[in-house]
């Protein structure tokens, strides 16, 4: 069983975040799923979500480098063409049935944005908006910036179109404008997911249209 795949590119996005692209070979996944990644001769694996589309030529992972992180730091410094362990895919945080007529609201903190990057690349006709909470402005995902991408920066002051200061949960009124049959996908740290979930329920959105995935 060969679970080792060649690294094609490492794309630095900010001081904390980067994307690692690996060869696709026989890897198949559904947009929204994750894989377990590791290094050769190292028993530790970590789960990372795919941020590329199902039909892209490489499989890309959005990774936050953690201080003293066993995998996240070493992966960033790996050489092009070196191989990494890729196990999976796992997870059921994906669109069960894509509906062009429906609106999809994606709410994420940090690298919880990755599944949504994958989904919007896989379904180019999707009617969506992304609400992305980050600590610093540099952690926003530049390739997503357009009218559908709203960022919430919690640890520095910044201004701009669709940019808000503070946490997503402070701006829940922004979510009130959508139809009651809108699909909500929440991904990120458990506190944010739990709080937004409560707020959506309080605003009469139905739990059957809310889907969640917790990241550390």
């Amino acid at each position, binding site marked *: 069983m060969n679970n080792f795949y060649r690294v094609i590119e490492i794309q630095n996005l900010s001081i904390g975040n980067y994307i690692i692209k690996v060869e696709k070979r026989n890897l198949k996944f559904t947009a929204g799923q994750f894989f377990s990644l590791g290094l050769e001769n190292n028993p530790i*694996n970590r789960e990372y979500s795919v941020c590329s589309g199902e039909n892209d030529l490489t499989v890309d992972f959005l990774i936050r480098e953690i201080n003293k992180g066993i995998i996240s730091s070493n992966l960033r410094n790996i050489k092009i063409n070196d191989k990494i362990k890729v196990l999976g895919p796992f997870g059921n945080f994906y669109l069960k049935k894509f509906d062009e007529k429906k609106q999809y609201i994606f709410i994420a903190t940090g690298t919880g944005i990755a599944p949504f990057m994958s989904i919007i690349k896989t379904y180019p006709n999707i009617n969506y908006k992304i609400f992305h909470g980050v600590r610093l402005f540099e952690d926003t995902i530049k390739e997503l910036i357009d009218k559908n991408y709203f960022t919430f920066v919690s640890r520095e002051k910044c201004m701009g179109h669709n940019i808000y200061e503070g946490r997503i949960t402070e701006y829940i009124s922004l979510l009130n404008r959508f139809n009651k049959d809108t699909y909500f996908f929440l991904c990120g740290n458990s506190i944010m997911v739990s709080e937004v979930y*409560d707020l959506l329920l309080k605003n009469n959105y139905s739990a059957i249209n809310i889907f969640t995935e917790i990241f550390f």
Partner: protein
Amino acid sequence: MKVAISFPPIINSLGQKAMISQNRNVQFFSVPTYLLPITHAQAATKLKLNKFHVIWDDGNSQLKNYDEWLNNLIEKKPDVIVFESTTPVMKFMWNTINQIKKYLKESIIILTGYHSMRKPEESFKNSNVDIIILSNHVDFVLFNLMEEIKVNNRKINQLQTNGIAYKNFLGEIKNNSTFKKIENINESEIIDRDLIEWKKYAYENGNFLQTPGTYSTSVIRDCTFGKCTFCRYNGPELSFSIMNVKRSVDEYEKLINHYKVKEIFDDSGVWYRGNDARDFAKEIIKRGLNKKNCYFGFNTRFEYLDEETIKLLGEANFRFVLIGLESGSNYTLERLKKGYTKETVLETLKLLTKYGLHPHLTIMVGYYWEDQKMLDETVSFVKKIMFKGYARTLQVTLCTPLDYTPYHQECIEKNLLLTTNYDDHDMSKIIVKTPIPHKKYYDAIKELYYIAFHPKFILRQIKFLLKFRKRDWQFLITYSVRAIRRVRQHVFNLTKSNKIRNEL
């Protein structure tokens, strides 16, 4: 309002007790282990703190027989009785509910558990249960439900609580399944040890090297990975929740200083990893709790802990580490979606033993695709691990489809189940079609258990003594007795299963 949280004693025709075991599976044993049901204990605590009259009614740990338990419950006349269910005891639970309803017509009966939450209509059809909780967050949902029932003066009509199905006064089934799938478990209660009579669970537990031992309030509800196909902590309706480190260490401090506990186990599906695990160990050391003659233990996954973390855990006096190996075949590991390969396994185990921890392997055999080659791979791989001293203890079970997990669904869809009787799901026999005779799997289990008596294994245990660690001496004395008991128990169960197998 009087609420009983009840676990009836379930005893089979051989006099064995049904015990809740790993992943809240049920197995029958004549020498029981009394495990504290954590989430239900948190539910009881939450209700008590909110002025409900709570009866903690665990007939197993209270050493009652069924009739005693039933009579005591009827005497107490609770307004509400809460049960937990799982596949092999579903029929028993339905019969029990129907029997109780004859005596306590006005009591509201609530069913919880992973089986009934996935098939609520079946329990309504087969029993007089009133309400079924559809969420794994039993404490949160039960509290909301009790508040609503109290306000409604115990009427169960037009209930608004999310995460339940119920039968209204017209006998119609209503389903409020649009519930919150995740909860902030920092807001769940730390277990009230006096309420649940913690000492009744403190001694009869094969995993404790020192007693009294106890289970802490879980820091992670369900599993951070949550994708293994056979496991009940898997499914779109489940999502893990995590408690902050300080809150958990506070509980450990109280358990050690106030209750004088000597071993604490966290039964979270998978315990902390990375920074959280390191912070936990550092906090234990900072408060001096590692010097109080109390061991700590937890469940983990193979690829979650690195050397730095394991070293810290060793310094913090962690001892028992329970890890699901499941199989020595990479093909099987992949089909189970375990997320690691056997190559990873040895590295992690070497590190754990290097720093004095005692890994305990949980292994399964009898998967519907498992051929002789895969089975042999598992046996030889486990032998290698045990003879080299990379793990200290093991348990082997038959993979049994339970609670409509993905593995269970696969078995149904592929028409592999040999029985439709839930009683047969008690892990005492293989109940799926397999590529080789069932006897081969039973023989493999015996072979794995007999490792405990192999000279190479015994020699390795003696070598551990030369490190002059107290835990290794305790281990040799305690486990030599337990090993004999456990092997006898499992061989007995398999002998029984050989007879039953022919009837399937």
